[in-house]
């Protein structure tokens, strides 16, 4: 699954990739006419809307690619760099850059493309850019506060306004196509000899319709994770796909025994986890199972991973997702955690027998019952003793705080 950096491409190779990507970037910028400040400034005066056309088309193309590859599960969108949102700084910086654009006629990327073909004004712009960074750096003590104010996280726009990713994508495409139509009409009026003269109206109309249809298709593309989650939690899927199970007694025994061969994966919410947790358990919410940072814990083949949740269905869903993602040696706790606590701590067992998936287990079940009958006394003694030890261990685990998982390095990015 993509991206390839940082796990598959080394830092050195990544620099070569950067050079090659830069060459393609620079070539396209120059071919588009972004090396010309007059052409760039035209977007603000209506005589040349090239900037808007190229910029919007590029943004929409890349966005569609990200959404579609995410849907297919080829691109891990949790792992790509999402520009962080610092509200005041995003607005202030944008306003300053807006002035810079209209006064200077370039932006940094385009000025470098202009410089490459000998535009002297572009060279001055780049020089000014260096001075601007230097001034900012020297005045940083004054600017630091506002630069770092109102950090809202690496949030995404569709979450900020509370609509689905697909709907936002579609709306953005619709706005882009609308803007293309409107600006073409404006440009025809202001500058009839401008770039619009070259356009093949028929082709553009067809392309516009095609893009809108593609955009409408985005509406029906949930994220890969959403899709897998829905698929796995369907009753039919839960019924036909089996997961290994572990009884509460066995789990309690292994915990008390401090068995190094198990790791308990608690898939409840962090709030629930912080209230009651089993000793040595790791909290990985059901939606976090996808995240690469937990692959070390979940991918450890030498340990049996026991999924613990409020009930068996929840644990089973989580375990099936993990299995779909290729993780092995996974079991679930029979009956769920609340039941384990009732039977093991409060000593109120309630006929805890696992739901066996196949009838072939019928025989086994019978044997198990007979063995149980013989051992019922031992079991009771074990439970009585275990409840005290487990209660103490759980108290200790709760006091020592939630176990933090080691983070795998994330992709760096930004300007």
């Amino acid at each position, binding site marked *: 699954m993509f991206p390839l950096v940082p796990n598959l491409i080394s830092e050195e190779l*990544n*620099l070569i990739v*950067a050079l090659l990507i*830069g*060459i*393609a*970037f620079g*070539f*396209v*910028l*120059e071919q588009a*006419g972004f090396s*010309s400040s007059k052409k760039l400034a035209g977007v603000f005066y209506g005589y040349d809307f*090239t900037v808007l*056309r*190229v*910029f*919007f088309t590029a*943004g929409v*193309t*890349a*966005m569609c690619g990200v959404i579609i590859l995410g849907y297919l599960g080829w691109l891990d969108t949790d792992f*790509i*760099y*999402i*520009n962080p949102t*610092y509200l005041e700084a*995003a607005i*202030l*910086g*944008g*306003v300053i*850059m*807006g002035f810079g654009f*209209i006064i*200077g*006629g370039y*932006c*940094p*990327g385009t*000025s*470098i*493309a202009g410089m*490459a*073909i*000998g535009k002297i004004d572009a060279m*001055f712009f780049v*020089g*000014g*850019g260096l*001075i*601007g*960074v*230097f*001034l900012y750096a020297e005045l*940083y003590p004054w*600017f630091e506060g506002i630069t770092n104010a109102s950090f809202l996280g690496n*949030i995404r726009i569709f979450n900020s306004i509370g609509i689905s990713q697909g709907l936002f994508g579609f709306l953005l495409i619709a706005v882009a196509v609308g803007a293309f139509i409107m600006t073409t009409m404006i440009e025809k009026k202001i500058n009839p000899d401008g770039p619009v003269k070259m356009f093949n109206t028929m082709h553009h109309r067809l392309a516009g319709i095609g893009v809108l249809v593609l955009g409408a298709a985005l509406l029906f593309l949930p994220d890969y994770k959403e899709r897998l989650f829905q698929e796995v939690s369907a009753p039919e899927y839960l019924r036909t796909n089996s997961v290994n199970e572990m009884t509460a007694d066995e789990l309690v025994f292994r915990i008390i025994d401090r068995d190094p061969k198990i790791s308990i994966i608690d898939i409840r919410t962090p709030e629930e986890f912080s209230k009651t947790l089993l000793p040595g358990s790791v909290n990985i919410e059901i939606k976090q199972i996808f995240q690469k940072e937990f692959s070390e814990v979940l991918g450890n083949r030498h340990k049996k991973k026991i999924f613990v949740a409020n009930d068996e269905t929840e644990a089973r869903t989580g375990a099936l997702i993990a299995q779909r993602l290729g993780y092995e040696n996974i079991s679930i706790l029979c009956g769920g955690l609340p039941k384990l606590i009732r039977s093991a701590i409060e000593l109120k067992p309630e006929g805890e027998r696992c739901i066996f998936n196949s009838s072939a287990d019928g025989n086994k079940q019978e044997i198990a019952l007979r063995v149980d009958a013989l051992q019922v006394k031992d079991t009771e003694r074990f439970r009585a003793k275990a409840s005290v030890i487990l209660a103490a261990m759980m108290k200790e685990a709760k006091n020592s705080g939630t176990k933090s998982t080691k983070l795998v390095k994330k992709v760096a990015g*930004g*300007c």
Partner: protein
Amino acid sequence: MKTTYMNPYLAGFLLGLVLLATIVITGRGLGASGALKSAVVATVSGIAPQHAHESKFYSENLKSLHDNPLKAWLVFEVLGVIIGGFFSGIVSDRLTFTTERGPRITNSMRLGFALIGGLLFGMGAQFARGCTSGAALSGMAVLSTGGIITMMAIFGTGYAVAYFFRRLWI
């Protein structure tokens, strides 16, 4: 000089593919102003290492660039932009030393304004953590809230003040 440029929608589509390839391969977006920052950090820490060490801005950036500001992803990418732009200039026969300006200003005025515009862009990009490429375009591709806010602020401001700077261009 009469030159023809690529159809803007085709150019935009290709640019979008370049950006998508960048995200898919490297997990990050395109950028430009970050290379300027690297250059400044490298220069200052080369000339005045003591000052760079004491300043929070330089020391933080040196740390994030592993003490080697020129060996940064964006520096290599921008070197590529120069090569790619130059190559495109050869292909389309656009290699000349010229200054573009509006009809009502002189060349030296244009160069002065280009310098001021660059200065503002260099500063603004530090606040917004990226410029038109790194914050606005790449931010839009991954639907980052901050990136899209910055994009709207850049273009919104441009339109809002265009009237007052019309003498520079028309």
